[in-house]
């Protein structure tokens, strides 16, 4: 719980499905107000409370979330 983590999202491949945002237990993800070249409003990490639990990666259809922990 007190573990520290972070995520990196390949924003150009994000399709804005919102799954990661919905399921992040720390609520550190949100859909950006900007869109990528394909026109999708991509997801981004906004808080520091990421624990590296990888739940976002488990639900991401695009397999574009890399998760660090330690």
């Amino acid at each position, binding site marked *: 719980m007190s573990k520290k983590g972070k995520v990196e999202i390949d924003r150009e491949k994000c*399709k804005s499905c919102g799954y990661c945002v919905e399921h992040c237990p720390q609520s550190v993800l949100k859909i950006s107000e900007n869109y990528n*070249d*394909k*026109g999708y409003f991509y997801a981004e990490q906004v808080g520091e409370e990421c624990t590296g639990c990888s739940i976002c990666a488990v639900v991401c259809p695009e397999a574009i979330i890399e998760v660090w922990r330690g």
Partner: protein
Amino acid sequence: MVIKSIFAGFGGQGVLSMGYTLATAAMVDGKHVTYLPTYGAEVRGGTANCTVAIGNEEIASPVASEPEILVVLNQPSVLKFINKMSPGGTLFVNSSLVNKIPEREDIEVIKVPANELAIEINSPRSVNVIMLGALVAKKGLVSPESMRTAIEMFFEKKAKIIPINLEAFQKGYDFIKGEESS
């Protein structure tokens, strides 16, 4: 003479109904017309587009390999189609969403801040109809009357939203006429 137009944008932007409505107007005008949407869902997640050909003679091919007119609602579509345009053609861009336009000196570019105009009339979903207004005002492919009839036909089953769409059409139309006269 046959004039070919391509309409392109994201799936949800009403690109196909733009083409369909224009084609209907051309039919009402008694012109020869074909309308060819992209079909088949075999590749998803791209842009949607359709082609309208209007003329006073039989239309040989519904395909526009070198369209005279291109109407684009988003950025990727500009990049995808601009090079196909026939020299002397007219590019209509929704300038609210498109900022990068590759240079081509042999075409005319008409920028329509359609999202802003849509918000002005309180109908953010009418971006496409506004663009149609601009197109008709500029190129006169069909008569404004036929266009109005086509809009009424299109929304036949949702009669409530006919007025706002007619208004959107007028908004786009007037935008161009205003620019022209200014």
